[in-house]
């Protein structure tokens, strides 16, 4: 009875499964961000952007690219864990994971890392497309100002939205509930969080409202690490992001303990 197993193998297997899974939906992962970010860059960056004067003096396209990248990161890390769990509910894989000697912490971290990887792949592709545009519009390839901060915000963003995806996928009883969360909460928070705009031009009241949106801090932190401008100070941003990571981790844990592994 006393055969002790190496804890790393189940954990690494889960991560490997996550990666293999999104590799199988490569078109969704790689091609669609190329198309959508090119469209955003053409319409907002090149066409409309030429008429925008930002208070911080940056060319609009320089401002926009980090926003698009972090949006890709957010959406894809969320989607990776939530769709992984939902499809596993259908296939019964979730039961296998529950029955196997794998802890909840391992499940959450494996999903988190899977989400970071997929989100980073998409952010990277968006960045490459963006930098080509940037080169033609501004004349340089948009160097990253603070690489260490950039890495930190990438990891935090990926984890937070992967954890969020776990929570929602476990709590959701149907596909509709899952997509409702995306449509009515995630997308508005991202758009209002400053992907396309700075809040400096807004009425002070609406500026205050924006500060209640945690995604606002993530986007601004990410943008700051790339181009050095932000609507909030860095310390507040880091504190909020770390808090968000802890809270979403606890939410994910709650959903694993309370939620159902049974099939849909």
């Amino acid at each position, binding site marked *: *009875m006393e055969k002790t*197993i190496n804890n790393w*193998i189940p954990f690494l297997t889960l991560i490997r*499964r996550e990666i293999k899974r999104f590799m199988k939906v490569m078109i969704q992962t790689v091609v669609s961000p190329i198309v959508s970010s090119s469209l955003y860059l053409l319409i907002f960056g090149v066409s409309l952007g030429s008429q925008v004067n930002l208070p911080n003096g940056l060319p609009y396209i320089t401002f926009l690219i980090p926003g698009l990248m972090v949006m890709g990161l957010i959406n894809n890390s969320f989607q990776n864990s939530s769709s992984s769990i939902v*499809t596993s509910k259908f296939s019964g894989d979730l039961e296998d994971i529950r029955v196997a000697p794998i802890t909840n912490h391992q499940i959450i971290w494996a999903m988190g890392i899977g989400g970071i990887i997929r989100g980073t792949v998409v952010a990277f592709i968006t960045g490459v497309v963006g930098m080509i545009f940037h080169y033609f519009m501004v004349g340089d390839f948009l160097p990253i100002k603070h690489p260490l901060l950039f890495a930190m915000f990438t990891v935090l963003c990926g984890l937070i939205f992967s954890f969020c995806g776990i929570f929602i996928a476990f709590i959701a009883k149907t596909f509709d509930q899952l997509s409702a969360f995306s449509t009515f909460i995630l997308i508005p928070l991202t758009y209002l969080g400053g992907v396309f705009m700075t809040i400096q031009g807004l009425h002070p009241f609406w500026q205050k409202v924006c500060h209640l949106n945690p995604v606002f801090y993530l986007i601004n932190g990410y943008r700051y690490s790339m181009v050095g401008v932000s609507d909030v100070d860095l310390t507040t941003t880091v504190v909020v992001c770390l808090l968000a990571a802890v809270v979403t981790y606890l939410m994910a844990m709650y959903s694993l303990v309370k939620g159902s592994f049974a099939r849909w």
Partner: protein
Amino acid sequence: MKALEVKNLKKVYVDVKDASRSVHALRGVSFDINEGEIFGLLGPNGAGKTTLISTITTLEKPTSGELNVFGLDVVKNARTIKQNVGVVHQEVINTGYFNVTEILEFQSGYYGILNNGDRIQFLLDRLALKPHAHKKVKQLSGGMKRRLMIAKALVHSPKLLLLDEPTAGVDVELRESLWKFVAELQKSGMSILLTTHYLEEAENLCNRIAIINKGEVNYCGSPKEVIQKYSTKKIHIKLTNGDTKEILTSAAESLNNVLAQHKISLADIVDIQMTEGKLEEAFTKVVIAGREAHGAAQ
């Protein structure tokens, strides 16, 4: 040591449709399985068989009672126990991104086993899945899916195997080969708990059975005993005067008594044939008796 001990196990669900009502799926179930035994859990739909299996695999938490696997409490030692238990769920898997080999590799990884190629090849071979190793689940027939589920349950060579209606919806030929495989697994030292609707097979395969109905065990013992106790046997007698007599009697009744009751002396008999009772009949009687006892108690 016992492979499994179930003591006064209760499970209460919240009703799916009406949250204010509760469903008593297990009402104090007790039985145990010896090491190396094939144990059959028989019961009609809704009896609580799947619920019982789910509590062993930790998919469901018992409401009360005790559950030990190889002497360890399931709730307290979940991780250790999981390494030694394999399960084939009742519901068939039907979707997924991965092919048969990938699924078995992941499954090995979940149990901490790297490079499990030999075992996987053996299982693919033994379960006739080799030609389908690169197919995805949705390309498999029902029987192949079932075999894949069995292979998954066995990648880590568990000491206790749980089979929840493994032959439901499976054709006769496959069913026979599956039971042969199960017997082989038993020879290798595995302890096996299976639920089935096919009583005849339980009769041949299981060392012991429990009959469960409405969350209560109505009978536990060897299949022979239950047949003796609850079924009828048919005695067909040819007499010297040319008459034939057919007598139905409890399987436990001795032949001497039967003959005495019918005032037949041995000298009058030319030939005698007995048809033993079937588990099916005993099963039905036990279930009905249990239902009546249950109704009376309420």
